[in-house]
């Protein structure tokens, strides 16, 4: 087991330097770059590439209304336009 894994807690959270730097043989490295270069699999989420998600649950909906001809855009008026009702 790589020693740098000790710098992650049980939940995979980083608990080392805030800038994610590590020191190996007196030389500073970024922990994620160092792990990648040395084939070390780190816990946690930050270093993992987001997996491409394919949503297979989407079903083609029947967009029947889209096949109807568009209306003229006119608003049909009802009544004489007088908002005051007759008594």
């Amino acid at each position, binding site marked *: 087991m790589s*020693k740098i894994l*000790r710098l992650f807690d049980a939940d995979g959270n980083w608990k*080392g330097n805030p800038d994610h730097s*590590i*020191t190996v043989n007196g030389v500073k490295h970024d*922990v994620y770059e160092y792990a990648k270069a040395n084939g070390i699999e780190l816990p946690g989420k930050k270093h993992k590439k987001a997996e491409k998600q394919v949503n297979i649950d989407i079903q083609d909906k029947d967009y029947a209304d889209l096949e109807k001809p568009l209306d003229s855009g006119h608003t049909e008026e009802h009544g004489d336009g007088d908002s005051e009702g007759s008594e």
Partner: protein
Amino acid sequence: MAVINVTSGSQAILVLGNTAPLAVPGAAGSLEVPLVQDLTISTAPGTVRYSTLDSTASSAFTTVVENEVTFNMLVDDDTFFGDGANTTNSIASDGLWSTSNGKTEIFFSIAFEGTDSGDYYLTGQGFIGGLAPSASIDQAVWLSPGSITVNGDLTKSTVS
């Protein structure tokens, strides 16, 4: 799982500081005690034994843990009498002798694996004592034992 081989010369390290951050292995300004020949960490839980008439064996319970660090070293002049060049760490500037004589509480750590990230060390605070430098014609260098009487717990940590 692996044994910790300390023969590289940079793994079993005693580090002293007047603050906890200055006593972290590899920290800038820390006093890394040189020329240490051996290093012993003693952690001893106190126990009380008692016997009862209904048992053929005595029973026991624990009280408090007493921690101590002991070492032997060759006397390094700057470490023993002080290095004025270190202005950030009063333990380094005062030296072991004055720190012991002044009964100054120190922070310390003992690196088990060195100063690389992820290396384990124990840390605590306490008082330097047990200095007894000696020299003779046959033993042509100054040697001294030393100890740290730990005030409280020893805590496991990793170099970040």
